């Protein structure tokens, strides 16, 4: 193992350890904040698999979050199953849904794929609002976790953390295997990828399934944590847009980019809402605009290129302007 790889593993290990001990030094509010960041990091990283690496920018990934949340809610509340079982079922269910919807929808490219996934998410929201088993628009209550208050905060933090680690580890393994190469090849030139022997249909669908799996798991934990879910919040297009912004801001097509993006965006949002009670979303919108114009490749690009400053910003604009 080369020095650089060893160094990378050590850094990852240290970060993981500090994350693991983080709750011990923080109050409940901070732990909850951290849990939310982890949740968005999972969603952004999962989005990155289909959007960043494969090049199929899904605009409906929130549908997996919602499906995961509702599978969990229905199984725990109506079938009386425990969380572990519901959690796994939520992941599997989301992945299966990804395959079913992916087969027709992944045949579309670019904008059409994006809008199709958006349509699926909105249709699913509307469907859940009208079904009896999901209690329509009234929402479902979930059984409460039987732990102390502090214990509950710890529990959800660690489950989210574990899910994030699983997401990143799987993504890492995938990237270094042939499968990862096939995804990037598909993104770069799908026709060429087909000609070179890659079964693009299989690869894309598997990528979409992985994306759905982890997003569904995040939804599952969220549902249990909230103890009450309604269709609107768990199927909102705003979540998809948020995870995309995080992935882009952090740097799509890189392993830790989405995590970085999630942390930055959430922290910035929190600071903004403390200073500007009324207009913080406004500044968030401005932030999105500015960062997409000046740093479209994300923070990771700044870190790897070790550049920043006026020249760098202008270079980006020159490359992308009309």
């Amino acid at each position, binding site marked *: 193992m080369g020095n650089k790889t060893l160094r990378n593993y050590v850094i990852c290990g240290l970060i993981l350890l500090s994350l693991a001990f983080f709750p011990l030094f923080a109050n409940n509010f901070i732990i909850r904040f951290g849990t939310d960041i982890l949740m968005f990091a999972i969603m952004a990283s999962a989005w990155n698999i289909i959007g960043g690496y494969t090049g199929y920018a899904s605009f409906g990934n929130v549908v997996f979050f919602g499906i995961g949340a509702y599978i969990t809610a229905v199984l725990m509340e109506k079938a009386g199953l425990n969380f572990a079982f519901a959690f796994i079922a939520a992941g599997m269910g989301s992945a299966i849904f990804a395959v079913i919807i992916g087969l027709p929808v992944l045949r579309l490219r670019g904008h059409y794929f994006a809008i199709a996934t958006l349509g699926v998410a909105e249709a699913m929201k509307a469907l859940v609002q009208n079904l009896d088993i999901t209690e329509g628009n009234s929402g479902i209550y979930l059984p409460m976790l039987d732990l102390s208050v502090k214990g509950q905060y710890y529990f959800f933090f660690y489950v989210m953390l574990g899910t994030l680690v699983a997401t990143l580890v799987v993504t890492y393994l995938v990237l270094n295997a042939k499968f990862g190469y096939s995804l990037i*090849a598909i993104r770069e030139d799908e026709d060429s990828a087909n000609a070179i022997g890659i079964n693009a249909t299989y690869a894309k669908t598997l990528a979409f399934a992985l994306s759905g799996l982890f997003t569904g798991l995040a939804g599952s934990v969220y549902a249990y944590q909230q103890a009450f879910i309604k269709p609107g919040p768990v199927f909102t297009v705003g979540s998809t847009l948020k995870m995309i912004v995080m992935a882009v801001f952090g740097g799509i097509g890189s392993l830790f980019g989405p995590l970085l993006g999630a942390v930055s965006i959430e922290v910035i949002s929190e600071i903004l809402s403390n200073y500007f009670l009324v207009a913080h979303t406004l500044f968030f919108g401005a932030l999105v605009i500015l960062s997409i114009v000046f740093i479209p490749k994300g923070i990771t690009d700044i870190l790897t290129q070790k550049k920043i400053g006026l020249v760098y910003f202008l270079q980006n604009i020159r490359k992308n302007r009309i």
Partner: protein
Amino acid sequence: MVILKGKNITKRFAGLVAVDQVDFELEQGEILGLIGPNGAGKTTLVNVISGTYPPTEGEVFFKGDKIARLKAYQIGRLGISRTFQIVKPFPGMTVKENASVGAMFGAQGKERSAKEAIKEAEKILGFVGLGDQMDILADKLNIASRKRLEIAKAIAMGPDVMLLDEVMAGLNFTEIDRAIDLIKKIRDSGITILIIEHVMRAIKRVCDRIFVLHHGQKIADGSTEEVLNDKQVIKAYLGRRYKALVA
């Protein structure tokens, strides 16, 4: 032994007949040229063989098996690889990564791990003369190197048959000569080649036999010498007054 055979291949696109009842045979170990004026249907024929789309009528036989209705990636894995007229490297990947993808998913891809494929790619890049550019991003190469990379990807797939689509276009004379040497080297390594070309200098020096398409139909088929002196071929390419294509 005939390794690749097309029988009565016809391809229609909504009213336009691009390829019209074409028969051809490719003998193992030879270099067969495919020439014809622009729009004759050459690339369409190659697209049919490589599985980009199926023929409207007709059949393609590879080592005796019917392959006309297989998908592009399946044909690639069976042992037929191709280059594209407008080269299609994977722009965000390095030269080495580009060639590795070929080695990962081609005919022997199944038995190789990612690492082994990368090693195989390094060998092949040396073979085509890109050994010193392995870590450069593919979209930063000049046109001659890009063509080499395109060929390297096709070789990396471990094919029995390679379809080269106008690899000489845009090259200067020196580059053409080097490309000719490379093509001969490829054939000597055991790969049978079908080459579409406009550059007559290359066709003369590299092909054993040639067949000619014009308006989708085959108008000549024989040894290089015969075909390049054939009256119909001359008429199709350069008009009746031109005496001979052979310089």
